[in-house]
């Protein structure tokens, strides 16, 4: 008997050890399971406390830095309007990074409206993970106001297999890419910046700056961890695994970007620049955003009307722009940085009403974008068309940063002082219409049949892509390795499937 007990204990201990391993290795998953399992129960529980008083409380997740207290204040001001108009209150959360959003959506956290700007892969990731609530019926019923505002051409870019999942923000829907560089330094060194230029011209400018200011970083990432607004005129066709090399041509052949000449030349150029000391040495690992505000001179950035002001708001430095290529348009541009109703929302109808209001109500839109009058902004002229930061408040440290393009409708809010002219929104729409559309405009890639290949290729890209594009590793040696590993991970299967879907899309389009 004693022997038996000892043996039983041994088995029990072994089981515990195993379970310990399971628990540790799957710490992340454990959360998923618990929430998944408890979901049915939670549904009924949460519906009740979500309503305070007679109002449904909607949770909004926006983009950009903001203090919790300031968010609460803005939310209360917005709720004052929405309680009356549509009978809802809101709770506002801002500044969550991509990983936090991933986790929240995967685990079904109840969010009612969410801007997917920070999710890697944006709309493509959202629909391929089934994170969004279908909107066709809701838009018909509760979103007529929004529908009038939105350009139907852009709306088409938000459909996946014929179903609408997002609404495009009223922002730039074309992109022109190039470099932003600090005005004060350029002026001081007598550098004239052409409106459109080449990499060679950029190189000369960087060399001049490097010689005059050896301690300054001539070229810095656009955001932390080697962020770069690409200056290659590609159509990424969703996830950048299989692209159209030049969106401005008629070619619809899907290719592996690592094998394209433009990509390889770019990497070689960056490697060269890096050897010459023109690139910030820790570009790929830095945890700093807004590097122009400290020791950086230039960065890759997209241009649009009013972009100079936007960079100023984010970095506190005035800039000149030099474009590498003019405006182009592909699916990911109009559907980028926009909003969804997550599948986990308990109140999709109210969320749509709220969303509609964000498109049509200037007060709601202005509160959400610019914050509270007198605290985060003040009128800059008597006609109430221009606004500015209150006296003594730094525009990038007011407690509620104004990131206008990340909200549904910036075009019904006042323009910030310093923009070239108050007619900014007209200019923006002209710019949007001037973009050369990619032949694959409107195509949304469905990666579900090659999901594991996509993951494997993303793992390969994580190793090489950022480092190659910042010239941190030798392209002669590493590009062949990159190509070979992508092949092993199944890039050819992805490209074949993508080409098949693209051909079908083009045939249907006629």
């Amino acid at each position, binding site marked *: 008997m004693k022997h038996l007990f000892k043996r039983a204990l041994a088995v029990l201990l072994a089981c515990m050890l195993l379970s310990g391993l399971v628990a540790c*290795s799957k710490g992340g998953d454990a959360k998923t399971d618990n929430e998944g399992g408890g979901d049915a129960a939670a549904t009924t529980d949460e519906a009740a406390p979500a309503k305070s008083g007679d109002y449904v409380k909607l949770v909004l997740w926006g983009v950009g830095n903001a203090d919790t207290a300031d968010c609460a204040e803005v939310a209360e001001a917005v709720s004052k309007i929405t309680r009356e108009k549509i009978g809802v209150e809101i709770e506002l959360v801002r500044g969550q990074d991509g990983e936090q959003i991933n986790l929240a959506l995967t685990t079904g956290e109840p969010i009612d409206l969410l801007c997917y700007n920070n999710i890697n892969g944006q709309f493509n990731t959202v629909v391929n993970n089934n994170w969004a609530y279908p909107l066709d019926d809701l838009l018909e019923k509760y979103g007529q106001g929004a529908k009038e505002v939105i350009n139907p051409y852009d709306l088409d870019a938000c459909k996946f297999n014929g179903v609408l999942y997002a609404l495009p923000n009223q922002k730039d829907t074309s992109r022109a890419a190039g470099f932003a560089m600090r005005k004060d330094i350029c002026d001081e060194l007598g550098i004239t910046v052409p409106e459109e230029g080449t990499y060679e011209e950029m190189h000369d400018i960087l060399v001049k700056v490097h010689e005059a200011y050896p301690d300054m970083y001539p070229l810095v990432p656009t955001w932390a*961890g080697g962020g770069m607004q690409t200056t290659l005129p590609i159509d990424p066709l969703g996830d950048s695994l299989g692209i159209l090399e030049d969106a401005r041509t008629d070619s619809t052949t899907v290719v592996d970007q690592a094998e394209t000449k433009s990509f390889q030349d770019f990497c070689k150029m960056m490697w060269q620049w890096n050897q010459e000391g023109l690139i910030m040495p820790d570009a790929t690992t830095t945890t700093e955003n807004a590097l122009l505000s400290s020791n950086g001179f230039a960065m890759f950035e997209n241009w649009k009307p009013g972009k100079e002001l936007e960079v100023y708001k984010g970095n506190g430095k005035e800039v000149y722009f030099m474009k590498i290529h003019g405006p182009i348009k592909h699916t990911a541009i109009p559907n980028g940085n926009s909003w969804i109703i997550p599948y986990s929302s308990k109140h999709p109808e109210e969320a749509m009403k709220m969303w509609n209001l964000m498109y049509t109500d200037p007060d709601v839109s202005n509160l959400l974008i610019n914050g509270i009058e007198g605290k985060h902004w003040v009128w800059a002229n008597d006609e109430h068309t221009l606004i500015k930061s209150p006296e003594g408040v730094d525009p990038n440290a007011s407690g509620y940063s104004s990131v206008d393009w990340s909200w549904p409708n910036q075009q019904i809010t006042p323009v910030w002082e310093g923009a070239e002219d108050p007619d900014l929104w007209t200019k923006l729409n002209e710019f949007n219409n001037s973009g050369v559309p990619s032949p694959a405009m409107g195509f949304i890639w469905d990666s579900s049949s090659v999901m594991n290949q996509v*993951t494997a290729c993303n793992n390969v890209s994580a190793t090489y892509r950022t480092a190659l594009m910042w010239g941190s590793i030798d392209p002669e040696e590493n590009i062949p390795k990159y190509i070979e590993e992508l092949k092993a991970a199944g890039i050819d299967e992805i490209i074949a499937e993508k080409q098949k879907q693209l051909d079908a899309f083009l045939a249907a389009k006629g």
Partner: protein
Amino acid sequence: MKKFVVKMQRYWPLYLMFLPGVVYLFINSYIPMFGIQIAFRQYNAAKGVFGSPWIGLKNFEFLIRTKDAWVMVRNTLLYNIVFIILGTVAAVATAIILSEIRNKKAKQTYQTIILIPFLISMVIVSYLAFAFLSTSNGFINNTLVKVFGIKAIDWYNTPKHWPFILVIINLWKGLGYNMILYYATILGIDSTLYEAAVVDGANRWQKVLHVTLPGLKSTIIILTLMALGGIFRSDFGLFYQVPQNSGPLINVTQTIDTYVYRGLMQNNNIGMSSAAGLYQSVVGFVLVITANTIVRKIDSDSSLF
């Protein structure tokens, strides 16, 4: 059964003390096992765990088809083997040296200094490492370049140095804690044994070799065995935070844990992430059982069960 009741009556306070641990294990380790099934499904957040379609072993198949599985297993195992061997040797050596120090104040000071790194969070360690290794402002590059005139090294893009960097950081950080356990064992060794050794004419070195080390034997075996059980686990902070998640280093810093994390948080492929996690658990389980069996064959008193 009757015996069990008698036992319960006699030892119930002990069982009561055992209870919180069991509850903790159940909540933390048994309930999450429900999630094992995700490894066999194509997880779909909107449909939930039960609604996601079964796809058999496809997640595992892909793990093995690419070099990902091989790289992360190789890294996890090799790093852990090095950590266990060097960690044990260093900890035992330090414990012995410390026990030989007579001055009580000095002893306490050294012990505290050695322990401090263990108490620092890995995130902070990663910034300490960055202060040394940063390409432009790092201590090493600035001294190497300025004092010795050697070409600056781009640490975060050069994989070949990282096995050494990680081993050094792990040793530095874990030494204090590992050492305490050995040090405590040394203090527990019967002092008459040393006196007898002195009577027999043993010198210091012989005392260490014939009294201290045999006294430490079972502690070393138990700790190594426990470490073997965790040989498929890795310190996430060490492998993810310290290399600053730098892409070119992934080949030498990817372990199963970082793969699971990246799969879950960045690639959103929870199926493959879970498959890697399950794989880790199963192989870890087999390793513990095997190691224990071997130890039991050699010295049954030292085995865990």
